[in-house]
């Protein structure tokens, strides 16, 4: 089998030039490997990123692993999940919820978890306008509420789960719901009084508090969720073990390398740790429960 793979190397090299979408598996010789590594970025790790940071990350990986790396981006989480399952990706930075789904569906494995502001976790905040008298989620009964994205853990899954624990459903508990598809937008909607409450990502909320304190000051957190694992780097189950090892070491040692530290700084990440699947157990449970309720 290895022999066939070796022959595919020049073809793969041509493929790199002629067909950017051509997928091929890399061989086991890391030093001479020329098959491009396909890595998707499907989740924002931290709100402080620059536009070029992911490209720079790719270049960093390419330099360290001595093979070309392609950056992939897709509109929906599901697409990325499916690409992981279909061997169309070698690694992906996933939203926590997406990782859980992909792990369940395709056996995607945890490669590394970022530590942001000292913790490899984040939370969901339920926020209301500063002038609101509500002090808990229950008091938002029959009010207007903003979610971010149906696939967002902090922006939909958690509040839905919290309501379902009370035997309620978001569609009927609130008089009106909407999806802003952006945590910034949700915060603004609350600050402006367009909605009476919203669920947002704690990382983004905390970041905005530093960069736009005036806006954030017009909101108030009435509930903080338990911690969820931060958006991890996930790899397909079928990834070449050597590649997996190299990639994992790369992420774990990134903070010890000067150019790696540069990228970490631009990402707004302290460092990467190996992480533990148990950090995502809470999300898994929430997902099961919400899906279960929906299925009924």
């Amino acid at each position, binding site marked *: 089998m290895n022999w066939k793979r070796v022959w595919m190397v020049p073809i793969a090299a041509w493929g790199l030039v002629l067909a*950017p979408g051509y997928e091929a598996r890399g061989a086991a010789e890391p030093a001479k490997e020329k098959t491009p590594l396909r890595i998707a*970025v*499907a*989740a*924002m790790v931290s*709100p402080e*990123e*620059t*536009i*070029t*940071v*992911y*490209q720079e990350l790719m270049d960093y990986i390419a330099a360290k692993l001595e093979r070309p790396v392609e*950056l992939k*981006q*897709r*509109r929906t989480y599901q697409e990325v999940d499916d690409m992981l399952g279909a061997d169309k990706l070698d690694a992906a930075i996933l939203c926590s919820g997406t990782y859980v789904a992909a792990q369940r569906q395709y056996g995607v494995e945890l490669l590394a978890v970022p530590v942001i502001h000292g913790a490899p976790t984040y939370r969901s905040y339920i926020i209301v306008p500063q002038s609101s008298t509500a002090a808990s989620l229950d008091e938002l009964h029959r009010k207007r509420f903003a979610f971010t*994205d149906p696939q967002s853990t902090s922006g939909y899954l958690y509040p839905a789960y919290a309501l379902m624990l009370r035997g309620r459903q978001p569609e009927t508990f609130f008089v009106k719901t909407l999806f802003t*598809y*952006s*945590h*910034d937008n949700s915060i603004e909607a609350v600050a402006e009084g367009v909605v009476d409450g919203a669920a947002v990502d704690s990382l*983004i909320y905390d970041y905005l508090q530093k960069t736009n304190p005036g806006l954030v000051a017009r909101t108030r957190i009435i509930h903080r969720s338990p911690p969820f694992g931060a958006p991890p780097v996930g790899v397909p189950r079928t990834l070449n073990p050597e590649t997996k090892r190299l990639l994992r070491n790369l992420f774990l040692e990134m903070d010890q390398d000067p150019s790696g530290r540069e990228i970490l700084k631009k990402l707004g990440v302290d460092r990467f740790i190996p992480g533990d699947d148990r950090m995502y157990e809470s999300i898994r449970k929430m997902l099961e429960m919400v899906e279960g309720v929906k299925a009924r």
Partner: protein
Amino acid sequence: MSAWAGLRTSLAVTFTSRIFAFVSLIILGVVGYLLVHEWQVLEHELQNRGLLTATHLAQQSVDPILREDDYALFKLLQALRATYGRDLPGQERIAYGMIVNTRGEALAHTDPALVHVTLTDPRTKQILARPEPSVVWLTDPDGERLYDVAVPIRMRGLPVGAVRLGISRAGVDRLMWGLAFKVFAVLFVLMLVGVGSIWRFSRRMAQPIQRLRDSARAVQAGDLSQRVRVDRCDEIGELASAFNAMTAELARSRDELARKEAMRARLLEQVITVQEDERKRIARELHDETSQALTSLMVGLKLLEQRPELVEGREALADLRALASKTLEAVHDLALQLRPSVLDDLGLVPAMERLAADFQRMHGIRVAFETTLRIGPRLPSALETALYRITQEALTNVARHAAAHSVSVLVEARRGSVTLIVEDDGRGFDTASCMSGARDDRCLGVFGMRERATLLGGTLTIESTPGNGTTVFVEVPLPSETANDRAQTDPHPSGG
């Protein structure tokens, strides 16, 4: 005053120019501020529209970028260019546009040469490093002023690339310059009109002041009949009234002064007349009574001297007789000095001759008397008396102060006036000291001489410098009948 200096200080000019400057400053300040403000508003509008356009483009670009569909991106830019490609006033023109990916590579660019080129200019680097919407002012190599609008392209917060648009400000610039030009043109015309009316107004204001000035100058030149028309109720009207009152008062004072002067002159005349009459009386008394008494005394003494029985007393009697004789002579001289009868009886010329002779005899100073008055009717007695007294005083001064060797006295009659000149070769004196009001008797004597001349309508001048002698000039006009008489009888005056 030169025309330019007159213009500079003219009331109308300073008033108008000050008001004009002040009002211009205010108007220009306000209008300038408004225009600048308007400009800023327009600029903000332009920037906001640019951001809106770029944001819209960014949203439309997400899917094509993920699909890696360069053609779709190209069409997007083309559509944008078509809509905003023209430079209409108030509408912005898109000078350039580009869509870059996470590498900074231009996936689409309005400049075909830059498609698929990784851009490294500072502005692109800036948006890639700090993905926030921003607007920057630029000037392109052709000198065109632009806004560079940069907006990040995000998908669910993830950076996907960036959009940059260059929007021309030429439209706004032109709009604002046009507006500014029109506004200032209108302002200019209005201000000209304003200046014109302010000028007219200030001239009307200045007129009464000018009239006052002219009247004041006339009063200064001596015309106290000036009165200014009072046709206003304000301060200028009050000034005019006050001016009229002042001038009336000045006229009244002047008349008063003239009256007093006339009275004083009459008084002085009267004093002199009384004085002369008194002298005449005393002289006559001395001559009639006192001389005769003395003469009788002398005769009696002579008879007594001839009595044979008074032998021892004969010397004493002779002495007494000599004393009486001397006294008689002294009284005679005194009477002559007081009022020479020859002056009344024979006239000025013989009196002057006698005076000259007596003076010469008494003081040892040579006196040369010349006159052209020998022939013809006599002068009025007041005139003769005055000339005699003046000459007497002048000669007395020569005797007392001049230390001279000789004096000449000249009396001449010309057409209409008589001239008296007394000139000595003494040591002179400083005439100015008498002018300053020095109070010694010499000055009083000079004052007296002058007054006598002035009373008769004549003038007296003294020329003297220390060391060069003194000359007294007197000129007195003849009353008309006397002048005519003299003219008939004395066509060729000759010296004596």
